[in-house]
């Protein structure tokens, strides 16, 4: 995960405010992958995620004047991306109200590992966990993704989701409880595999 010092980031932002292409390109390269990964996990569609990613950067650059350098650019960028994502999810839900936006099987965007027994089992485990994540509500899913995948603190997550820290912790608690319920509802066989892979005693 690319990261730069606060001072360097401030300099980049100052240059980007002057519409310096080099600075904007550098900011894009620093943050695009993480942002895209988050958005893709939220929206579960490559084209939409890329669209939202582009929109988020455009909005961020358009309102750089109002950005306060006391915050990290990534925090702000993720906030914008999350807002756009939520709007997109709501409109999808409005159009397809009878359809679960999140299918039980990922859309084929995930690539598979090597064709060994171990890898297949590991892939199954990951698939199970990620399917469970897909079934969380948008705020819970965002909290889980930002906490585990992007290793953000609850305070940072609170800024991005524009929620109080206590609410973020509540989302995390409920998300973990929900994930446990979903995983425990798996068939006994899958659960045995899950246990053996995770080294749990019977």
């Amino acid at each position, binding site marked *: 995960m690319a990261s730069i010092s606060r001072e360097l980031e401030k300099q980049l932002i100052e240059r980007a405010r002057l519409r310096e292409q080099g600075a904007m390109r550098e900011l894009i390269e620093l943050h695009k992958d993480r942002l895209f990964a988050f958005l893709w996990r939220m929206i579960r569609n490559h084209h939409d995620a890329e669209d939202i990613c582009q929109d988020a950067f455009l909005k961020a650059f358009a309102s750089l004047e109002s950005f306060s350098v006391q915050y990290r650019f990534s925090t702000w960028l993720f906030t914008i991306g999350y807002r756009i994502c939520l709007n997109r999810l709501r409109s999808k839900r409005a159009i397809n109200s009878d359809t679960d936006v999140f299918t039980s099987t990922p859309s084929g*965007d995930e690539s598979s590992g090597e064709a060994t027994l171990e890898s297949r089992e590991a892939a199954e485990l990951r698939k199970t966990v990620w399917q469970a994540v897909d079934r969380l509500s948008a705020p819970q899913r965002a909290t889980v993704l930002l906490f585990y995948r992007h290793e953000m603190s609850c305070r940072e997550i609170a800024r991005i989701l524009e929620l109080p820290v206590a609410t973020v912790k509540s989302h995390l608690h409920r998300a973990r409880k929900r994930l446990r319920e979903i995983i425990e509802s798996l068939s006994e066989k899958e659960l045995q595999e899950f246990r053996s892979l995770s080294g749990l005693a019977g």
Partner: protein
Amino acid sequence: MNCEQAQQLFDAYLDGELSPSLATELGAHRLRCPECRRALALLEVTGHVLTAYDDRVSLKEGFEDRLLACVDDRSSFRQRFRRAMYILGPLAAAAVITMAFLGAFDRNPGRWAGEKVQAKDSAGLDRLWQELDETADAEKGEAVDPRALELDRWGRKMQKNLQSFQDLTIYQWLDVLEKAKDSSAPEDHFPGADPSGEPEPEDDLLIEDVVGGGR
């Protein structure tokens, strides 16, 4: 520690926020209780999977170039729009004012033939405006009220100075123009009489004809 108390500590334990003493208590309970042991282990493994998993999805090639092209488009549009408003905005305002004056004068044809109207200062222009406001709108193509012509002449001067003086009030503009005005201009004459008497034959005067004819 019972199971309910232990489960209440799961989140803090997973977030690394548990004090050493409570962590010890939880660990002791975990060793004794298979249910809690399993539940916590499930959550730990789930966390490991979420942290470790590589999505292996990436943006399409050329994302930065496409994005920067959009940024360029938007910022150049914004700059052009701002530039256009800077110039067109005051011009549009002046055009509206001028058109309002032209539309307000009394178009009784030929009524003002021979009358000279000249506003020497801002007070004079005030009076002209007031008189025009009281005059009914006229039909298109009828004789031009010299009061309107005078205001139009001032308006054209204003237009030329708009970019410099756009922050001034109308009266400040007038004062500036007054200072720049030709000091040898004849004294002003205002049509004081009411519009009465027989209307003169129609005379299709154009502003340019009159203004271009000089004073």
